[in-house]
């Protein structure tokens, strides 16, 4: 009998330290597809300790699923430590590079919008601006919304990175 799914998904930021070894990333990503979990964004890079990579991902899921996700991730031999940043106070940032058509009157308008958002114009041609913006996902969404009319040509988002506020750390 078909049942109606009530969507009680919440947004979770999982941040983890894993061995910086070949195959580690594919095991994390594979786990998500294999078990039907969702990934909204994913970012990964080595840390100051080159043997470790820090991976941050955003997933939308309910409470029972997040428990399974964290357990299954912890079970991966390559995963050293893990935190659900959304469980506490945290800082999250995403970087966007966006190329927009900027000619005529729009040119000034876009410049003003960029200033309001404290975005930086990092490359210029006679008809284009390439703008860099760092902020929360919401802020970046809002900026895209604000410049939408003026012909967005290309959007590159880094995915969210995050860190806990205060004394809490995710380190060895």
């Amino acid at each position, binding site marked *: 009998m078909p049942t109606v799914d009530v969507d009680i998904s919440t947004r979770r930021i999982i941040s983890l330290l*894993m061995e910086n070894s070949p195959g580690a990333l*594919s095991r994390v990503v594979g786990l998500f597809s294999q078990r039907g979990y969702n990934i909204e964004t994913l970012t990964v890079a080595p840390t100051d300790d080159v043997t470790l990579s820090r991976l941050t991902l955003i997933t939308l899921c309910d409470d029972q699923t997040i428990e*399974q996700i964290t*357990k299954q991730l*912890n*079970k991966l*031999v390559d995963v050293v430590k893990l935190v659900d940043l959304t469980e506490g106070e945290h800082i999250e940032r995403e970087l966007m590079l966006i190329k927009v058509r900027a000619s005529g009157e729009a040119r000034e308008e876009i410049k003003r919008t960029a200033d309001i958002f404290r975005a930086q114009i990092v490359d210029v041609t006679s008809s284009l601006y390439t703008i860099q913006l760092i902020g929360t996902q919401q802020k970046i969404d809002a900026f895209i919304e604000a410049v939408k009319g003026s012909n967005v040509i290309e959007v590159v988002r880094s995915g969210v990175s995050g860190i806990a506020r205060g004394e809490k750390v995710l380190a060895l």
Partner: protein
Amino acid sequence: MLKDQDKSPSSGAEHAKSTNLTEVNGDVEMLSGGDMVARALEEEGVEFIFGYPGGAVLHIYDALHRHSSVPHILVRHEQAATHAADGYARSTGKTGVVLVTSGPGATNAITGIATAYMDSIPMVVISGQVQSHLIGEDAFQETDMIGISRPIVKHSFLVKRTEDIPRIIKTAFYLAASGRPGPVVVDIPKDITAPAYKAPFDYPAEVSLRSYAPAEKGHSGQIRKAVELLLRAKKPMIYAGGGVIQGNASAALTDLVRHLNFPITNTLMGLGAYPGSDRQFVGMLGMHGTYEANNAMHESDVILAVGARFDDRVTNTISKFCPQATIIHIDVDPASISKTVISHLPIVGPARPVLEEMLSQIKDIEAQPGIANRVDADAIAKWWATIDGWRQKHGLYTQNRFDDSSENIKPQEVVQLLHELTDGKAFVTSDVGQHQMFAAQYYLFDQPRQWINSGGLGTMGFGLPAAMGVKLAHPDAIVACVTGEGSIQMCIQELSTCKQYNLPVLIVNLNNGYLGMVKQWQDMQYESRYSQSVYQDSLPDFIKLAEAYGHVGIKITDKKQLREQMQTAIDTSREQVVFVDVYVDPHEHVYPMQIAPDGAMNDMYLSKTERS
């Protein structure tokens, strides 16, 4: 040919040194990668390698030939190598070892790796890979083994340098057997094992990984809370699975269960974890579980789950699962807890130390004065009366629920007879289908590791190769493979391996002429439309087939001769492989059978005409 080889692990060094291929550089031996693999397996005390050669592993095979003390079993298909290593592992608790070549060798091993993964069986699979510089070029017999096996291994390694072989193999064995066991793949490119390049071989005594620390004991506070729940229970159930067997916790479990006088049920994977012929054992639970086990689960107020994972073949509809029960769940793998059914009291830890601590805490409490801290004996007595009522009404062991007066041989009675004639002491492997369920229901296993079957993946073809692995480890025991004419044909070629290594296993083919379990579902859900479950007179003459491989075939069609012929078969299987082809009632169904979808634990068909 195995007998004249020295299998003691310590002899390896001697063998290696006796060849001129070893150079000693200072104190450290210099070995080629191929020799390192052979030596590492000796260092691990490996008793058997199950494998099949091919281009990418030729250096390793040459090393084995030159000086390894570890016997190698040449199977006839790589799937069988994994199942045989698996049977060896299940029956001994040691890690099974497989060696296959790249490409098709590796892919053929996949089914067996998945089988071991689903049942948490310790296994190390060494696969050859094309030369490092060819990886990614679609080279001959190249396949991304790490990628293909990723979702069905506990962990895997691609070896990049000869120097890494000792550490990686050591780690692979450690990972395979510790925590929740499972298969580990070590993929080695051919150039890494080449004889020309030698590197220091210094086998690590131990490994520790910063990212891996399986629990070694349970949390005492959690155990204490569990004990309180158990002592207060009025309708308790103990539900034990394969984790008890893998965790060598059967004795601890048995002590606890006897001390408490609680009823216990085992999963398909847990059979033998508690003695099957004991009064307190209420039979297997789940889809084909007993009436008494499924009812007792459904009515229980406290469930102690140990090393079991609330599989869908156990729970039936999750939302209707055991509505009154408070659930205590012991598992070494935290991810198994609250995965399907939410557990009220999780205890992460290996079954044995947790169960031992539980019993000792119970005894401590009982030693204190006052009766408040005792099991409620009256309630438990009442509970047993209820359970005994279920047993009398529809239980599998109070009387035969199948028509034993029929002229047809019933598959159930073949298993009963096998049990009787082997004193309940045989190792029994099985395949997948009705025969598997009859074996599970009617061969009452008193010992852990006696029942060897693919529970999680349900792999047809598992039984015969698994029996080979069991027989190698237990040459003096009777090893019976209870199978069906469908399943046995999936790895029938292993009759040849049995010949080469003289592995006299007893094959009991419950020949119903159908893919019986498929047919049963088609009878029950598809108005007996037998879509592709019939072979239409194409079955081979199994007797001639057995004989062609140099074995003995015994055909049983007459119920009156069943006992005598089975006895002959068992006696003959002391020396030779015996293939017993028993013609059983083609229309028998396995009961009880839980009603799905939407049924609860205790909603069951009890026969073709009765429901619970």
